[in-house]
């Protein structure tokens, strides 16, 4: 097997952040190549570099198409073509098709029209024929329509029932499938799937797996990016792992999933330290966790029973129950797309659950308006921080106290926070957008504190932060907790979260898989499985 795509020392940084740092890869023709890595590892940036949406600052990206001529004749007869610095449409013309992590369908066109638009490069210019649309001249139209219907059928969308529906009206899973059909319409050499199974339930994921395998058997080379390790490990022939823009491992699935650096990248920087510190004690602890379901508090501050949340057709949270007692730190951990953020958003009133109970003291969180929830003391620090980049640090904090009526003491609190967090005090007149990611996170937490929370919901506070900044953020969380604030924490960095959590719940595809004390779960191999598959 010869290489189809070759990346050599590809570099791309945004501002000071190395999104893709000296990455070299080789994708062999006819294989399924998996690209994995934690959030913010640079996977999508890499796809955007290959497909021409972003230009690399150095390095080469070469497509080697010896076996058959490119689908769009005329360009790139040569054996190896440099993709870097070509615009996206030219890369597509060389036979590289892609889907998008955030769906990018032509929402107001029908399913058939979406696929037909994907055939752009295979359609000759027909402006004059269409001017006199007599049947003999439109044979091409019918042939294309037939092919489009075949493609829809191939990805599992029967054209008779789906062809004429507007893309926006399809269910989430069907939209993902339609995107694959549209990409296939290009007749590509290489198909890049960016999280094709994101947000799907296990049955839908099985269908995606079958489709990928089928396409590969028909001779297509696939580059697959996904967070679902079970999917990636089971279909891919070869896997590369990215972390902070660097390739940290590369090999067949069996080797990669055992690689200690990969486990560290996924479970957090403390994985190995933890393993080293408690030699021999793992098995005993496993026994302990599997018998003790988490000791739930008798009269919880936050009580959630059988919560169910859906986004249109896709159910993100499927019957989740848990409680948070006063003074606890409780963590929800689990892989991307497990439904953790959805749970938090439905507690803070941003989303409405479609069934279940969520009580915060006397307040019914399923119906209370968000501003009332905040005033009662349940405050969320959202994922991605959502600070106001064009206001100064001080102005951001002042807005955090906006809902309070005690102007003077709010002012004192702002001053107090600036003293407590010198990182903010020293930068009070700087624009928040100029802060580093970790400083922004601390600003977001401080802003949350100004609403005087009894319960603080923290959504991925370590997202996209460098390791030492993660330490700082976790110190801050610990400090807030010591000051008497109850904390519900959602984290991908499981081991760090388990270290500070009193209790934790492992969430997988919208359900709670495991629960226990932080210390016990930390040593539980099931946790590792939930992250890395197995």
């Amino acid at each position, binding site marked *: 097997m010869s290489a189809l795509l070759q990346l050599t020392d590809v570099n791309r940084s945004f501002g000071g952040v190395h999104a893709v740092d000296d990455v070299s890869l080789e994708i062999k023709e006819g294989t399924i190549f998996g690209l994995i890595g934690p959030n913010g590892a640079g996977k999508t940036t890499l796809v955007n570099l290959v497909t021409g949406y972003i230009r690399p600052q150095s390095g080469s990206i070469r497509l080697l198409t010896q076996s058959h001529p490119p689908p769009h004749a005329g360009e790139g007869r040569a054996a190896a073509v440099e993709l870097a610095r070509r615009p996206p*449409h030219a890369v597509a013309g060389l036979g590289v098709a892609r889907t998008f992590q955030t769906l990018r369908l032509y929402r107001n066109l029908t399913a058939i029209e979406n696929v037909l638009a994907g055939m752009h490069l295979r359609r000759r210019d027909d402006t004059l024929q269409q001017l006199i649309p007599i049947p003999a001249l439109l044979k091409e139209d019918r042939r294309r*329509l037939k092919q489009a*219907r075949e493609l829809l059928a191939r990805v599992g969308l029967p054209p008779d029932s789906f062809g004429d529906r507007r893309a926006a009206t399809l269910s989430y899973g069907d939209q993902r499938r339609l995107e694959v059909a549209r990409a296939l319409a290009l007749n590509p050499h290489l198909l890049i799937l960016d999280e094709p199974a994101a947000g799907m339930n296990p049955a839908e994921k099985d269908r995606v797996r079958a489709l990928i395998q089928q396409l590969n058997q028909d001779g297509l080379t696939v580059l697959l990016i996904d967070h679902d390790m079970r999917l990636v490990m089971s279909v891919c022939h070869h896997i590369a792992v990215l972390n902070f823009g660097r390739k940290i491992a590369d090999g067949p699935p069996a080797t990669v999933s055992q690689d200690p650096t990969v486990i560290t990248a996924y479970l957090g920087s403390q994985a190995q330290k933890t393993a080293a510190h408690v030699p021999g004690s793992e098995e005993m602890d496993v026994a302990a966790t599997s018998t003790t379901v988490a000791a739930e508090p008798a009269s919880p501050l936050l009580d959630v029973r059988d919560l169910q949340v859906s986004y249109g057709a896709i159910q993100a949270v499927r019957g989740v129950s848990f409680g948070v007692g006063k003074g606890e730190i409780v963590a929800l951990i689990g892989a991307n797309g497990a439904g953790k953020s959805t749970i938090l958003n439905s507690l803070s009133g941003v989303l409405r659950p479609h069934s279940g109970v969520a009580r915060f003291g006397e307040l019914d969180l399923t119906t209370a308006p968000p501003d009332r929830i905040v005033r009662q003391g349940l405050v969320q620090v959202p994922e991605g921080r959502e600070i106001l980049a064009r206001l100064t640090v001080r102005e951001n904090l002042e807005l955090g106290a906006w809902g309070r009526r005690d102007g003077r003491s709010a002012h004192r609190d702002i001053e107090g926070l600036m003293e407590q967090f010198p990182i903010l005090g020293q930068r009070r007149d700087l624009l928040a957008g100029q802060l580093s990611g970790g400083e922004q996170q601390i600003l977001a937490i401080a802003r949350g504190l100004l609403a005087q929370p009894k319960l603080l919901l923290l959504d991925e506070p370590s997202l996209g932060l460098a390791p030492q900044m993660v330490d700082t953020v976790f110190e801050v969380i610990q400090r807030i907790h010591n000051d008497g604030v109850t904390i519900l924490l959602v984290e991908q960095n499981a081991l760090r979260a388990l270290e500070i959590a009193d209790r934790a719940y492992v969430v997988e595809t919208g359900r709670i898989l495991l629960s226990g004390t932080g210390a016990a779960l930390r040593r539980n191999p099931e946790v590792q499985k939930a992250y890395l598959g197995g």
Partner: protein
Amino acid sequence: MDFFVQLFTNPVGFYNSHELLIAQMGINAILAIAIFVTFYSGQLTLANAGFMAIGAYTTVIMNIYLPTPLPLDMLAGALLAGAVSVLVGLPVLRLRGVFLAIATIGFVEALRLGVILNIPITGEGQGLKNPTPDPLGGIVPILISVPILTYMVWRLTHTRLGQAWAAIREDELAASSNGINVPVYKMIAFIISAILAGYAGALETHINFFIDPLEYSVTRTIQILTFAVVGGTTNVIGPIVGAVFLTSLPEIVRQFAAYRDVVNGVILILVIIFRPQGIVGRGGLAIIAPRWWTRWRTRERPAAAH
């Protein structure tokens, strides 16, 4: 109501007494087709009044100074508008949404204040007298052009070009992943739109005695925009219906005399509130389409592949 009574009981008399109105409807319909083309490719450009001015002035100036036949003058006006659109489009089409709208308005004003009012051949602020005005004969090419252009643009939306425009309108990033050269296709739409606007400007001079630079200001551009907004932009019929409706509205509400502008405005607001997708929305004339028509359009179709 006299307007409709006469329209239905005495069409010939209606035609004779409303010739100028009908000519203006036709010109506005062509302008509506012009803005539809850019809308269809997802571009909010408001340069049409400028391209109209180029078409109009070129036609009249050629008519005054050159012995060429009038149709050739008009063609030259339309093509010159197309040529200028390439120069305008190169820098401006990188912009999107409201920024593109502002930049194209800038072009309209720069053309009028900077060029037309400053070069002697255009008559500067005084305007130009049309040496061969023909209010009655001029209506003929207009009435012939409207159906032909409507048909051509309607068919254009079915071509490879039209399909690429629709894809760009829906999602530019996705369109480029399908191999569509987004800047080129946007430029083609911009040029076609400019040629149509230039042609409308040329036709308009033919029925007028005089061209006035004030005719080609931003106000005109906004008026063209309302044709598209009120009529709807899902297909080419929408802006045309909008143009015909809005052109005849002042006549229809003539009996309200002093309150004419008020009634005019209220009707516009009502349309925008109750038909935000335009008079001709998705699936045709939704208000007046009979049930069987809707049912027939959405019927279960046998597999078209065979």
